[in-house]
């Protein structure tokens, strides 16, 4: 899905440095609410960066071809020779993407307002498929209309958490505009990093070191310092998981003077930090997220759809993952990851069954609950109720363990419903695989 599965790191970049790149790589393909980040569109990321003093090209996001034309006209009138039309979806690889209509490229440089209008008409409302969207692609609802610039050099810049070091890291590379995984694999020495003391924030000298590493000279060193300090502050103060500029470009500025500009911007936000940023929370685009996963999140369920035929409903993330593994171990394939949390109320189990039933691939359901604090009898009552409420027709295998488990199992038995019981986790998984076959 990420397109990075085959990516191998060069030996020089192993350890802490390698890890950072891998974390970074994980962001490149993800676009769902269950991720550890909420993604926002490029135009929103650029607005955010601009607030922290990071220079971005002049431009505006639009939802109709007429608006696109109007913005293009204005940019051309301001003296810009070219206008770029950029499809706004939460996935990379837009430039090389293809619309389902056959149109090539989700990013296009245009020379006139009429050309922009024509392009906008061809892109808006259409499905764009890139190497990160999967074959289903994504509907383009908005375009970013931006001034075209003359690019002199392309760089890479990102801020993210280094889990192993327990602090943020800012990294830059002279190899901009390409996959950073490729750079890490073939020329790891071209990636330069500064680890940041979270109590102090990025220091000016660190930012200058990075600017110099990019080859900045003279006035550009100060400009680079200011830009990088802004990028770091945008990461920290927005509770971001990732801020990435790829490319960060050296472009021909006014009067032909070279200047630095964030040509592309990607921002992922830490879900856990959103409560203090209502303005950023409002940027969530549900159209970019899988509908069943959005529905699940409304019920406090953590659901991720997979491709198999055995749905599972488990309490606890670790146990849920282990249950998926067990299904595979027994020769089946899990249809989803579903964590109902520590409890497992009637409402939650009912909602979970309803979501599972919407997945047409599901042939059987495996419920695996360790009733630690909660009474298994209460959980069993909930399951029976949910089966009745949802008129569940799929084969259901339930494995209960823990507090008052005997009463719980008896209740399932007494319900008269065709619920299969598993004595152990392995036993239940085997049964589920058998009935799904």
């Amino acid at each position, binding site marked *: 899905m990420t397109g990075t599965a085959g990516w191998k790191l060069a030996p020089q970049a192993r350890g802490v440095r390698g890890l950072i790149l891998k974390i970074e790589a994980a962001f490149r393909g993800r676009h769902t609410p269950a991720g*550890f980040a909420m993604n926002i569109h490029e135009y929103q990321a650029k607005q955010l960066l601009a607030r922290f003093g990071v220079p971005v090209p002049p431009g505006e996001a639009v939802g109709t071809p007429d608006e696109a034309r109007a913005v293009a006209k204005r940019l051309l009138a301001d003296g810009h020779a070219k206008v770029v039309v950029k499809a706004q979806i939460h996935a990379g690889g837009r430039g090389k993407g293809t619309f389902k209509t056959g149109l090539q490229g989700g990013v296009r440089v245009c020379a006139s307002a009429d050309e922009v209008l024509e392009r906008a008409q061809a892109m808006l409302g259409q499905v764009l498929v890139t190497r990160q969207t999967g074959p289903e692609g994504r509907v383009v609802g908005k375009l970013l209309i931006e001034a075209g610039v003359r690019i002199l050099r392309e760089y890479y810049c990102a801020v993210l958490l280094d889990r192993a070091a327990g602090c943020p890291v800012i990294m830059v590379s002279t190899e901009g505009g390409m996959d950073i995984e490729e750079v890490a694999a073939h020329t790891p020495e071209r990636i330069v990093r500064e680890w940041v003391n979270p109590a102090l924030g990025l220091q000016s000298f660190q930012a200058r070191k990075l600017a110099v590493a990019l080859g900045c000279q003279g006035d550009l060193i100060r400009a680079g310092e200011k830009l990088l300090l802004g990028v770091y502050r945008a990461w920290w103060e927005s*509770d971001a998981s990732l801020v990435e500029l790829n490319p960060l470009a050296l472009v021909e500025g006014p009067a032909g003077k070279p200047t630095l500009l964030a040509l592309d911007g990607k921002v992922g936000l830490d879900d856990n930090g959103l409560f203090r940023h209502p303005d950023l929370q409002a940027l969530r685009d549900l159209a970019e997220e899988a509908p069943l996963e959005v529905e699940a999140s409304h019920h406090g369920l953590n659901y991720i759809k997979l491709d198999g035929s055995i749905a599972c409903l*488990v309490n606890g993330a*670790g146990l849920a993952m282990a249950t998926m593994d067990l299904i595979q171990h027994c020769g089946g394939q899990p249809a989803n990851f579903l964590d109902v949390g*520590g409890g497992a109320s009637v409402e939650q189990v009912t909602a979970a069954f309803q979501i599972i039933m919407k997945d047409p691939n599901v042939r059987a359901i495996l419920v695996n609950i360790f009733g630690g604090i909660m009474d298994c009898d209460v959980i069993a009552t909930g399951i029976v109720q949910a089966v009745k409420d949802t008129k569940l027709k799929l084969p259901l295998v339930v494995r209960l363990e823990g507090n008052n488990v005997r009463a719980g199992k008896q209740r399932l038995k007494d319900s008269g419903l065709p619920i299969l019981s598993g004595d152990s986790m392995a036993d239940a998984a085997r049964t589920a695989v058998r009935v799904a076959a």
Partner: protein
Amino acid sequence: MAILVQPDTRVLIQGITGGFGARHAQLSLDYGTQVVAGVTPGKGGQSFRHGPHDVPIFDTVTEAVKQTGAQASAIFVPAPFAADAILEGADAGLELVVCITEGIPVTDMLKVRQAMQGRPTRLIGPNCPGIVTPGSGPDSHGGCRIGIAPGYIHRAGRVGVVSRSGTLTYEAVWQLTRAGVGQSTCVGIGGDPVPGMSHLDVLRLFNDDPDTHGIILIGEIGGTAEEEAAAWIKENCRKPVAGFIAGATAPPGRRMGHAGAIISGGKGTAAAKVAALADAGIAVAETPSVMAETLLKLLKR
């Protein structure tokens, strides 16, 4: 002996008057844990009553420690205030702070981690089930339970358990107990990307604890903490270790519930972790059903 907490450890609860904190304060009291104080700013002077128990509430942790000699705390305060609660516990000189709260922003935990460096206070969590040192009474009554784990599944004994996951830890503990094998201490370190104690930190303590004779290490996809622990075990650990890694079927780039459980760019996979464990001489359980069995086979040798 056990690690980190003993049956006589004096425990305070930060956020004792909230619904979640109150419920688990009651369960810890029922388990026989020495809950000596609660802290809720503005409710100092009141008390938390449960059955025969009458636990004094204080406005600040420092005051609670001074008055009651509390040594360890459990944090149940909401995420926006949890980082502050951890730092308050460290400031008051507690030996151990266990943060149960889920959903703390990464930037908060980065500050906490920085601020706690060089301090004697140890942190377990956040987003964790906590720690249990089982007691010797019926259903392990009389032990020290800090957090949200069910007490009765434990049994006092000599196996140490360390894990990132809650319910998966309960599974391992319950498997041990049903096989008649007790635990010295069970530690749930939590599933966040910026945790307090790591697998490795806990393993070192188990290795030095004369009453821990075997260890179950439960990991999951994401990060490299299990690999680091395995490398250390290979060189230093003198005790039999059984392991299990959850998430073999998890697709890359998707977070599996825990903020830390994500496979990134082909690293942090279950396969890589299992290989690292096996390379360190750890017996890796093939399925979660045989976590205890795998260790018991080693112990019988």
